[in-house]
């Protein structure tokens, strides 16, 4: 439990908290705004019809929030990091197809309505976030709920000292 924190583990921990924080922020900012606002951003990618875009806009902010929370807290850390990574791959696909098709995206919908960078900027930023997801997946186990709960489960499974 009191092993020294290695540089890799520190990087994994920081990556887990940073990426979790980004997803929590992104989810909350969108969940607090009207779903229609995010739906317009989704529609601008021209992959979904309007009604499905609205349903996605209702659901997606919560998925981001929960995914970010579980990752930051280190609950099922590797699965959470993988899931967040897959979300980033999905975002990259959306951005790439918009860029290739030359779609006039004025707001990428990445962080609600509060300002939007260019598609290229967002694409590069997501690559950086993907590296964080990889670090969290590989070395993000320290100071996680996984470890804390694991340790307490071990203690609970051991017979009390002096038991017959």
């Amino acid at each position: 439990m009191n092993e020294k924190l290695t540089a890799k583990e520190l990087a994994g921990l920081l990556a887990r908290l940073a990426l979790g924080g980004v997803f929590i922020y992104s989810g909350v900012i969108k969940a607090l705004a009207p779903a229609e606002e995010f739906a317009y951003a989704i529609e601008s990618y021209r992959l979904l019809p309007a009604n499905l875009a609205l349903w996605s806009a209702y659901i997606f902010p919560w998925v981001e929030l929960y995914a970010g929370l579980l990752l930051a807290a280190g609950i099922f850390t590797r699965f959470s990091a993988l899931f967040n990574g897959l979300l980033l791959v999905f975002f990259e696909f959306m951005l790439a197809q918009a860029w290739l098709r030359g779609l006039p995206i004025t707001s990428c919908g990445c962080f609600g309505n509060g300002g939007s960078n260019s598609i290229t900027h967002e694409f590069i930023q997501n690559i950086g976030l993907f590296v964080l997801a990889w670090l969290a997946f590989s070395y993000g186990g320290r100071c996680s709920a996984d470890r804390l709960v694991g340790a307490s489960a071990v203690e609970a499974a051991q017979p009390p000292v002096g038991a017959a």
Partner: protein
Amino acid sequence: MIERKNARLLALACMLIFISTIAVLMARQFNLGPTRPVPAYRAFGPADAPVQIYEYTDFACPACRHAAGKIDEMLKVFGGGLRVNFKHYPLANIHPWSLHAAAYADCAGEQGKFKEYAGLLFAGQEKWGLAKDKPKEFEEYARQLKLDWPKMLVCSNDAETLKRIKLDMAEGDVKGVNATPTFFINGKRAVGAAQLIDQAMKFDNVLRSAAKP
């Protein structure tokens, strides 16, 4: 042991999800979410005014007409300390032409006469508000103000205009607006002119000191 660990983690995950959902829903209810800026022609008063009012209004609603008069008085008295941001919240289920009125008002705004057109819409709301066919008043008011009516017609059918109004409405829904006029005075909710004045009194000192030359 692994099953026990997973069960505990699952319980922890459910608890986090539950708490975060409640926190976000409460933040919505207490109006802690961001507010979309309004177009420049729908904002009155200095941008850095210490008291910011967001007003959700329907042009066909009599209480909104009454409140519009109070807002004008407040702007005259507390000019420097107050900024009023006008948001559309047409109650289309009871006022069939409200959405059209909102669109025309925005289009008048793009020609620099939002306030004047809004004034005429409020003043004449009994004539057009419950009309069965499309009211001719919309065009009359535009001609009265020497606005370019054909341009307004094009603008009122533009997807961007309708999107802007619908986003105002959706934002009102998220903030729990269900009656007009609803105001948010530095984030504090007030419904109707009486509550508006009551809430504004709480900022009296700020308003008066900012209004002093």
